[in-house]
């Protein structure tokens, strides 16, 4: 059993498994972006539309970081996965833009 365990570890080393370091950096980055978003709203002395743009920008940036690192989207072999999710994002953003700008026209 012990020899089997070391063999597994060697196997893991040979293939260079990506360590948790990048994930912790992504986590700290997400916390930071979230903190900036909350702080922007709490301080609240800025123009309303400007705050909206900052908030949406921060959210998109954070989602991008999490999907690239945590969902392994940056790894190779994800071409069709990216096409699939982007199709969903395209339809979803069309709906959102429609609701925000055309619903009460």
């Amino acid at each position, binding site marked *: 059993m012990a020899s*089997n365990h070391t063999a597994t570890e060697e196997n*893991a080393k040979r293939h260079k498994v990506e360590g948790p370091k990048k*994930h912790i950096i992504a986590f700290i980055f997400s916390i930071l972006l*979230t903190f900036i978003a*909350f702080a922007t*709203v709490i301080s609240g002395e800025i123009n309303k539309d400007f705050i909206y743009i900052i*908030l949406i920008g921060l959210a998109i940036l954070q989602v991008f970081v999490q999907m690239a690192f945590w*969902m392994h989207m940056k790894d190779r072999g994800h071409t069709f996965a990216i096409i*699939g999710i982007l199709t969903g994002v395209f339809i979803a953003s069309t709906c*959102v833009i429609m609701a925000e700008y055309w619903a009460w026209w």
Partner: protein
Amino acid sequence: MSAHSHADGQLPHEPEKATLEGRNKVLGFWLFLGGETVLFGTLFSAFLALRHQVLDGPPAHELFSLPLVALATALLLTSSLTSVFAVYALHTHRVKALIGWLIVTVVLGLGFLGLEIYEFYHYVHEGHGFTTSAFSTSFYTLVGFHGAHVAFGILWISLIIAQLMKKGLTVVTAPKVYVAGMYWHFIDVVWVFIFTVVYLMGKVV
């Protein structure tokens, strides 16, 4: 032993993608997440269009409390990190660590769900019921759908933990763990937009 085991009894590198079935599951799950994006996109659209129609109910900036939202966000974000640690344990073939991180993820998810139940209970007592206004209905539908996803994820990951304890880590169980991890990250990604669009934008007067 099943036919899926390797001849030397060792797991291959990235066991979730070692079989065609595993690879198909991962790709199929990405397509499913594309569909889930559309589902949440439409719920967000409804909320964005209706969020100012409050009738007699309390408006968003009076209702929401940011410390509660910040705590919920911290719980879900941390659970996303622990599920990524679980996938790292999967890649290094450490079953005990894998089960441990999944349990931590489930506990954090339960904490998030508990906060949300408390939050909804509190809102109803503030006069913000499901049928109070177009704002309240679209709010509960959007946030409630996300909460239902969290509840489903907790149940799903718990069942996977039970299966891992019974069957161990194989090329059959590995894709299940990986796909459940993707689902959990997706829930966190949706929450990023919820706390931004619903709570933070609602607080800006």
